[in-house]
């Protein structure tokens, strides 16, 4: 099984007629994802390589029965696109857009939570979600993922998500689902949301978690794992060497004092019984060892 999405998930692409939307939307469809429509205001009635385009999410949902949306529009339009998706009946929204102002993210997150309690947002500024062989929404290259489980992956970092998939697939270890939650200040979906789903998913036997410096999401996840997680978790946290007080790229990873450092996160995770590794390769090797011993 997979989490959040599966082989039956019908997806629309908001921004399908743009260059990025077209590239990734078609790539997702080619992977096997049920991309059933696109949304671009004013372009309803046209199509992109056979995928029908609608003027609004509502129209697209009514016509296709889609439940998921892939938001791939520029930062200034992303918040409105996300809210439109929720209003239109979409329950799972993946937004890869990078560079959305933090205030917009905070406002959009809270509007979603308050007005659309059944809707989940993944991202923004995330690589998306892939359930190998079933569904790929986002920008992950499908060929680095391997179907058949038994590992679930959740990651705050884009490239490290690919690295994690690569390390496992190279060793013949498949993934149930790989979720890139993104490193922005206000992520719609966090580690705990994913860990809880992986814990419930019978096909997921172990979880790999990729964290980063900044914030306290890893510490909160550690607390949750300690109390709720029965499956083994292998973690890697990037940024041990990062100098305090510097912002390392769009990750919004600001270190303030000891809290939020990679070391503090690694300590918290270790205390929660997680296998904490020093680099992605080591994490991959540890996971291979765990899976092979099952």
């Amino acid at each position, binding site marked *: 099984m997979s989490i959040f999405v599966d082989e039956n998930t019908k997806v629309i692409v908001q921004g399908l007629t743009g260059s990025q939307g077209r590239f990734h939307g078609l790539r997702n469809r080619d992977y096997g994802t049920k991309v059933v429509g696109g949304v671009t205001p004013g372009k309803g009635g046209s199509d992109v390589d056979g995928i029908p385009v609608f003027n609004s999410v509502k129209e697209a949902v009514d016509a296709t029965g889609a439940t998921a949306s892939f938001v791939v529009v520029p930062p200034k339009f992303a918040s409105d696109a996300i809210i439109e998706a929720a209003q239109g009946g979409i329950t799972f929204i993946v937004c890869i857009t990078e560079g959305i102002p*933090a*205030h917009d993210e905070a406002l959009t997150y809270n509007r979603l939570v308050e007005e659309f309690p059944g809707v989940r947002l993944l991202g923004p500024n995330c690589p998306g979600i892939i359930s190998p062989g079933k569904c790929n929404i986002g920008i992950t290259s499908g060929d*680095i993922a391997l179907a058949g489980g038994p590992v679930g992956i959740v990651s705050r970092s884009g*490239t490290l998500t690919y690295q994690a998939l690569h390390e496992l697939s190279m060793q013949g270890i498949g993934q149930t689902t790989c979720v890139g939650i993104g*490193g922005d200040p206000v992520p719609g979906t966090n580690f705990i949301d994913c860990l809880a789903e992986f814990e419930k998913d019978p096909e997921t036997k172990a979880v790999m978690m990729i964290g980063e410096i900044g914030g306290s999401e890893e510490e909160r996840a550690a607390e949750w794992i300690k109390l709720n997680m029965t499956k083994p978790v292998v973690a890697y946290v990037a940024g041990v060497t990062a100098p305090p007080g510097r912002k390392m790229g769009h990750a919004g990873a600001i270190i303030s004092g000891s809290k939020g450092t990679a070391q503090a996160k690694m300590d918290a995770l270790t205390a929660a019984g997680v296998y904490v590794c020093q680099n992605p390769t080591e994490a991959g090797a540890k996971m291979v060892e765990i899976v092979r011993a099952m």
Partner: protein
Amino acid sequence: MDLFEYQGKRYFARHGIAVSPGDVADTVDEAVAVAERVGYPVVVKAQVKVGGRGKAGGVKLANNVDEVREHAVNILGLDIKGHVVKRLWVERSSDIAKEYYASFTLDRPNKTHLGMLSAQGGVEIEVVAEENPEAIAFLSIDPVEGLTLATARRWVAEAELDDVAREQSAELLVKLYECYTQGDCDLAEINPLILTPDNKVHALDAKVTLDENASYRHPEWEEFRGDEFEDPREKMAKEKGLNYIGLDGTVGIIANGAGLAMSTLDVVNQVGGTAANFLDIGGGANADVMAAALEVINADPKVKSIFVNIFGGITRVDEVAKGVLEALKRVSINSPIVLRLDGTNALEGRALLAPHLNENLITEPTMLDAARRAVALAN
């Protein structure tokens, strides 16, 4: 983007927040002119983006023209923790009855805005938070609801601000919140927010950090740019649109994605090396970006080897390979380059590079191998 005090005060003033009358001065004569205009006594303040100005002699009271001249001469050019003072802010001195603290920032765990207000201002708020957390009135603000005057009134009472300061402070806090949200600040802080002996409340300092992601809707931010980068490497990188942070080591780092870049630093460190920089070329980086990145690294005299760590996703590895070759044509690279290339179109990328490999252009199959090689070459 951090603002200088004078920029922060102008940002505040635009949102109706009271600040002291004053102006900037880049020379001693300009400082005198401002002082004569706003009236004595004045405070002459070094404009640097670092704390502890006062202790370093960067903030002085002047009662007359001679004192302004003396202080301006001393402060201009002063080195405060590595920041050389090039500009002064000269403002009318305020009598102070009380010093408060007020700020807004994002509360990441709670995904709301966080207001902090304290009757104990003028000192570092971290110290107050540590020693006497009850002295800070925390206010969690739902971004959907915002901050109303009614809530601000409740807040100033909870913080036990002096009676005469409450209504003015409540109104100011609503304006500061507007400045924070409409102005797309990551942080809007006033420390101290003062009450004068004649019962007026105003901002005596300003600390503002702007969210670069919002710059598309703030053309007025252009005026704040220019002086931001103390490090010439960072300035050059910024001009080329790269996400670069200068560090002190000998291995130049180029990676795609902030996480992978951080991880690259970690791995270099683990195998005994030190990174010269953090450089994330981002998603979808093409040949031009790669060439620019190599140029920036090459300009750093401390760099002894360059580690290019790419995992293609949006970024296509063949594009990266082209970029490296392009850069080698354009610039004479001083240090050997070690490449690790994986992901989208990795095979094509490696094939492109193969004919050009030599002792100064090396590929390694894994991140760890590449790190070891780069560190060996740098040490």
